[in-house]
């Protein structure tokens, strides 16, 4: 039997490392390897390249160099933003606002802090497209709100949130109440490769970015922290990263994330246009299968995200059949997660449990071709038909209501 050509459509989980990024990183493993804190020439060289990388990233963010803090990845950056602000400003208020479709790296720490009694939490609902309403947000603001954390783009359904609008609403609130609070954090991990990261246009005070979803290495992340903002550190030690994040700098990782973000941001216009065309073709092709619905927004959508629910089938079974065809995707089904509940994101958009169990995410990337998309459109109907044939369930379309 011929092995089918592998088609990787799980770039939202993680991307491969761009070869150009890899080549730029390579000398920093065994040639320029010294500790940037060391006082000798090799150490100074390492310090210089870290400074250069920080400066590259600061330009992409339209920020100052010292506002860029390197961490071990998206989860650490999110945790640092939340614990850091909440604990450093506990005396000023305990109220935090977030959304129902945040990544676990936001929701779990916040639920933990809530359980410990350190915060009061408002979780904003989203509409059917996965969008937070700015009006809902404004109504949730309280005099003791110290932090707001809303993701820039959702990892499962690709919905792009109105970050700049929320940022503006916060600026108005602060001015009216003559207060520096609340601070505004956004998790931009899914957006790093495709959306504008200008912190002045977004009006954010803190922003999480990582490399592993933008063709850079894993194990490196950034927290943008607006100048003057006080944060309690999570990792305490030698005082690196302005005392906010101790630990010897991951020099190859830092070089890698700077290169990956630079390439992604420089090339995003052309690549986004290409991906959007492929995305829309895949959506159109898959929606010809009966009893399917697109999750997320048609317009406010990442250029590489397709998420569709197929009624009467269970997502993990579909993932396994597709895997046998060499196609790698993800599902929001409970069976494919650590919990027994299906995706909290799909449920938050108001879809039924039934439809959430049958949700599949196809996330496209730089190597995805039109042929790949046509191949998926070709094999999918048979897989769905086979699983539906095996299923005793025959649900009404009302489950999509």
């Amino acid at each position: 039997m011929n092995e089918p050509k592998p088609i990787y459509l799980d770039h939202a989980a993680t991307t491969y490392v761009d070869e150009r990024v890899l080549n730029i990183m390579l000398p920093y493993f065994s040639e320029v390897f010294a500790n940037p804190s060391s006082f000798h020439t090799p150490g100074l060289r390492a310090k210089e390249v870290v400074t250069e990388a920080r400066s590259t990233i600061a330009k992409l963010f339209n920020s100052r160099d010292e506002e860029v803090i390197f961490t071990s990845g998206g989860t650490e950056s999110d945790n640092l933003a939340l614990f850091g602000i909440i604990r450093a400003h506990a005396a000023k208020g305990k109220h935090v606002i977030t959304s129902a479709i945040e990544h676990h790296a936001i929701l779990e720490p916040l639920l933990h802090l809530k359980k410990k009694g350190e915060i009061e939490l408002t979780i904003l609902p989203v509409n059917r497209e996965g969008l937070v309403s700015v009006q809902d947000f404004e109504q949730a603001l309280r005099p003791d709100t110290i932090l707001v954390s809303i993701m820039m783009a959702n990892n499962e359904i690709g919905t792009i949130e109105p970050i700049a609008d929320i940022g503006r609403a916060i600026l108005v609130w602060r001015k009216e109440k003559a207060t520096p609070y609340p601070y505004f954090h956004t998790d931009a991990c899914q957006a790093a490769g495709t959306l504008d990261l200008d912190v002045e246009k977004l009006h954010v005070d803190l922003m999480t970015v990582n490399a592993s979803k933008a063709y850079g290495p894993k194990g490196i992340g950034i927290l943008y922290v607006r100048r003057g903002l006080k944060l309690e550190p999570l990792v305490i030690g030698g005082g690196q990263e302005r005392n906010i994040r101790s630990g010897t700098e991951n020099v190859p990782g830092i070089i890698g994330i700077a290169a990956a973000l630079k390439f992604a941001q420089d090339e995003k216009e052309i690549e986004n246009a290409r991906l959007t065309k492929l995305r829309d073709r895949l959506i159109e092709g898959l929606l010809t299968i009966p009893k399917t619905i697109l999750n997320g927004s048609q317009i406010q959508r990442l250029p590489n995200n397709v998420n569709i629910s197929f009624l009467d089938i269970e997502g993990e079974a579909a993932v396994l059949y597709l895997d046998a065809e060499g196609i790698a995707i993800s599902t929001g089904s409970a069976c494919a997660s650590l919990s027994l509940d299906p995706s909290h994101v799909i449920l938050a958009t108001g879809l039924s449990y039934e439809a959430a169990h049958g949700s599949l995410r196809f996330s496209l990337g730089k190597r995805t071709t039109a042929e790949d998309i046509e191949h998926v459109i070709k094999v999918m109907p048979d897989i769905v038909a086979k699983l539906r044939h095996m299923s005793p369930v025959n649900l009404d379309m009302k489950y999509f209501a």
Partner: protein
Amino acid sequence: MSDPNIISPASTDARQGDVVTNSKDKGWFYTDAVKEHFFHPKNFMDNEAEYADAAMGMVGSPACGDAMKIWIKVSPETHRITDLKWKTFGCGSAIASTSMMSVMATENGGKTLEEARKLRPQDIMERLGGLPARKVHCSVLGDKALRAAINDWYRRNNQLDHIEIETGRIIDKVLKITDHDIEEAVLDGALTLDKVQAKTKVGTGDPSCIPEVENLIRFYKEKYFGAE
């Protein structure tokens, strides 16, 4: 090193049919036997019209992620299952378990209804060479659907005294929560009192039952996931 969550059919653990660890953070992939039954399911229902008169049992719902329907044909003389067909909505593990159960119920001339009633999820898992720990709960519906079909057969054949209604022993007298409910919660991954309470609310109406609930959690945890 092989993945400790997956047990090979040759191992002692596999022969016991239980999963070797309750660790939930790894162990994901299926054995060859599971894959074979998942990609080439045996005895699945192709033509429901032909089985309109057959005894039928169904459990689960699409909302909880698993639903199974089973039809059996039984010899009135020997009470052996001569034919079993099924349909399953569920993940790879659920589909493979139902398929394997259909083979086990009908092989070697078929099990008698009394034998078939005793088929346990662990027996099915053993034949599948084990399942990842977090998948165990997906395999426990098949035997329940089979028992429901067996009851249906007795009902259709007017042997009502043979019907066995599955009732558990009541643990929480206020909320009428049974040992069976707690077993289900443990199978669903609730391995602490907090988590079982989150699923069942047990003990919130009748706190005096909590020590017994804790004992049951320990018992079912060891039964399905092995001793720590």
